[in-house]
């Protein structure tokens, strides 16, 4: 089962916020475990590229530990010392630095896992349906280029093999020519085919007509907006005493441009396909995610020290733990639990007379 793109996006935001706000390993581990429950449930179909991504994450995690330990020499608990005359890395290697490296890597990996889990279950096109009209084309181009990357990689592999079998050796930069030229040309050929296919299906058409007066206003507003934005930025950067006025001018220009883009975007007549698939499970997940976001935003504003973890003296190496916060973070496991419950219910009892279906099973 898949969640609605909006509830799923809200969940991702709720999961990534704590990972960005705190280095407290106890909270991070809870987030990591809650998210990994959803990760293991992802559809197996495109496991390989995500696995590679996570493997890279683990590698960077492993890298942050020695990096931090070698370059940061603060802390009381010395494990051993490197000669002081060694540039940069010379000095005491401390437990605190190792721990901080470990925790920073953990935070980084958690963010990557959230991103991966989110991506593995979100339909990019559905997400695109929720972007404002004037961003649609740019969004579509981005989503196409994302799918182009794996295709490019596999054709690069094919070309490299084909040239190697032809007896070619890739040693110097110049030797890469037989790789780059076919890669570029096959990529271009593919792009042309895709463009043909999109054009043949009416992409980019259907602009609502506007009068010449509206057109004139649009052009004038674009020019004025651009002038005002750049003049404002220039003033605030070079004339300190005028910086307030400069910022006001820049903001006015930016707003004007946004309005023009918005108006232009609303001229593109496109409808959005998509069945209303928001159901009880989505509401549950959205509420839970909202709670996590609200709690963390609230604490950041009211009691920021609650979230701080810093192993170096004078702070403590042992992280603090607020059971209430820990409990709130457990809410992030909700999507996985609901999904599991639904799949157990649907597989155990085929819906028939007298069987009540769990919300979400209708998909």
């Amino acid at each position: 089962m898949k969640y609605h793109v909006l509830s799923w996006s809200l969940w991702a935001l709720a999961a990534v916020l704590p990972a960005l706000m705190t280095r407290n390993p106890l909270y991070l581990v809870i987030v990591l475990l809650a998210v990994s429950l959803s990760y293991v449930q992802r559809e197996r179909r495109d496991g390989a590229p995500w696995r590679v991504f996570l493997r890279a994450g683990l590698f960077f995690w492993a890298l942050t530990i020695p990096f931090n330990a070698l370059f940061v020499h603060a802390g009381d608990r010395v494990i051993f010392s490197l000669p002081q005359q060694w540039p940069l890395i010379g000095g005491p290697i401390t437990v605190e630095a190792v721990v901080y490296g470990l925790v920073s890597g953990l935070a980084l990996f958690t963010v990557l896992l959230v991103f991966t889990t989110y991506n593995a279950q979100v339909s990019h096109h559905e997400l695109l349906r929720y972007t404002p009209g004037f961003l649609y084309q740019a969004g579509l181009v981005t989503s196409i280029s994302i799918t182009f990357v794996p295709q490019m990689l596999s054709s690069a592999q094919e070309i490299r093999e084909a040239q190697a079998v032809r007896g070619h050796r890739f040693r110097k930069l110049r030797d890469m020519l037989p790789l780059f030229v076919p890669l570029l040309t096959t990529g271009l050929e593919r792009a042309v085919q895709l463009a043909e296919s999109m054009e043949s299906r009416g992409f980019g058409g259907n602009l609502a007509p506007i009068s010449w007066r509206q057109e004139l206003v649009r052009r004038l507003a674009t020019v004025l907006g651009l002038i005002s934005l750049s003049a404002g930025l220039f003033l605030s950067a070079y004339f300190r005493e005028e910086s307030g006025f400069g910022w006001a001018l820049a903001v006015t220009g930016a707003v004007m441009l946004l309005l023009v883009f918005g108006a232009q975007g609303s001229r593109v007549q496109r409808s959005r396909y998509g069945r209303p698939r928001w159901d009880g499970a989505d509401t549950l997940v959205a509420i839970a995610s909202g709670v996590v976001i609200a709690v963390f935003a609230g604490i950041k504003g009211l009691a920021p020290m609650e979230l701080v973890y810093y192993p170096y003296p004078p702070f403590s190496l042992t992280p603090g733990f607020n059971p209430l916060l820990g409990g709130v973070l457990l809410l992030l496991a909700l999507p996985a639990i609901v999904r599991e419950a639904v799949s157990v219910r649907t597989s155990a009892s085929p819906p028939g007379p007298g069987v009540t279906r769990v919300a979400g099973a209708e998909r």
Partner: protein
Amino acid sequence: MIEFRDVTYAYPESDSPVLENLSLRVEEGEFVLVIGPSGAGKSTLLRCLNGLVPHFYGGRFGGELRVAGRDPVVAEPRGMSRVVGLVFQDPEAQFVVDTVEDELAFAMENHDLSPLLMRKRVEEVLDQLNIAHLRGRAVSTLSGGEKQRVAIGSVLTLSPKVLVLDEPTSQLDPQAAEEVLTTLQKLNADLGLTVILSEHRLERVVQYADRVVYLPGAGQRPVIGPPEDVLRRVELTPPLASLAKELGWDEIPLTIKAGRRQVGRSALVSRLASSPSPALLEQEDRADTTGSSQIVDVEDAWFSYNGREALRGVNLSVHQGEVVALMGRNGSGKTTLLKQIVGLLHPKRGSVRVCGLDTSDADVHRMASHVGYVPQNPGTLLFADTVREELEFTLGSHSLPKDGYGDVVESLELGPHIERYPRDLSVGERQRVALAAILVANPEVILLDEPTRGLDYMQKAALARFLQDQKGSGCSVVMATHDVELAAVCADRVVILGDGEVVVDGPVREVMAGSMVFSPQIGKLFGDPRFLTVEDVLRVMGRT
């Protein structure tokens, strides 16, 4: 429905027009097949129908064209998209969105259709094309035939009046091609949709067509008419039609069934049976290489990609001067096996020995001096500015003298193209350049992956002749192919793979006569291992 009146079109920077004074009328509900040698303008003709030519490509367009009352030149592709649905060759390259259902809706979203209508149309198309079970799947996980049906669906949702397809089956295996073509036939018969289709492999499709348009290219007049008439008048014909013409039958059969009727009528079988030379055939064309030395020896090879087993205990031996055809469905392990032989992949278990070298020990460059591998897409090889530089590059890589390409250029008839940019050449010519770029190094074993993709009958015949020559000079050839006709003409042995295992391995006549799928037209016609090709029949009749 469609009317071309004296249409002439030339691509930008080209002196000679691709289409010249073309006039053609297509009635509503017709199934029209467009054929012709590669480079004759088939794709151009199809792209005129929705205005991609001249809007997308530029160039000079003359004459008048009407499709369902509209002028594509004025209406542009976007305006034509609700009237003409265009499906392309490569199913991969035409998808915009990641899931099947969204892909089907894409065109309708562009046309601002209401959500309710979109929903209804998506359901209808899913049912019409029998792909309802694929609704939620990611397009990247579909098989070739499924992808092409989704591509057809993605234009059908706009309810066009004309469906135009540019070689939609050229990248598919025979089973997937069948899937797509029967779908088209159903759409044409049930919905009355006008279908315009270009295709090289006529034997697959000619029986469905109401009319055939033959574009000879090079400024000559096209031949237009019912399939029988056109096949009688042109050289580019499937084996069954070629046989009918050779034997002077009064009717050109389009299907095996019609062919059998003709055979019965002409008492051909009894004539062939009583002909003096049935025994002659046994010792004839196909090499018996059991005595010659073994060049390739694959022993119990196992291989898997990311946990998915691609080869499962494959055994294969190839002798010197032997041509072996590897056949089987897409994904059955043919390409993997070729890559094992050239040493790009190494078996996880078992061994692969080629020319006395164990591929697991020898590096690819060492293997490359013995084995030439021509990949499926010649585009992966070609990068130089001229054909000559392309050949010199291979020779340089193998540390051979740079002017040693004379023989290959001659036998592949590349002389006239030697100073041209390889990517400007037609598909068939490009294929030959890729072949030449590998063969200049004089490998002992030639590996070909789908060598006939995009080739017309003439080019295929030329390729078959070339392979026979190579065989004559002691080369061994292993080719992975879906093309039963090519295998029937030039293979000595056929190895059929299924799910990573060797299912059948035997002499070509034995295997093909006993197979329902992997049998050429003439083989199906007679059901006799002595007759696989037109030449076989003519030889026994003493006609060659």
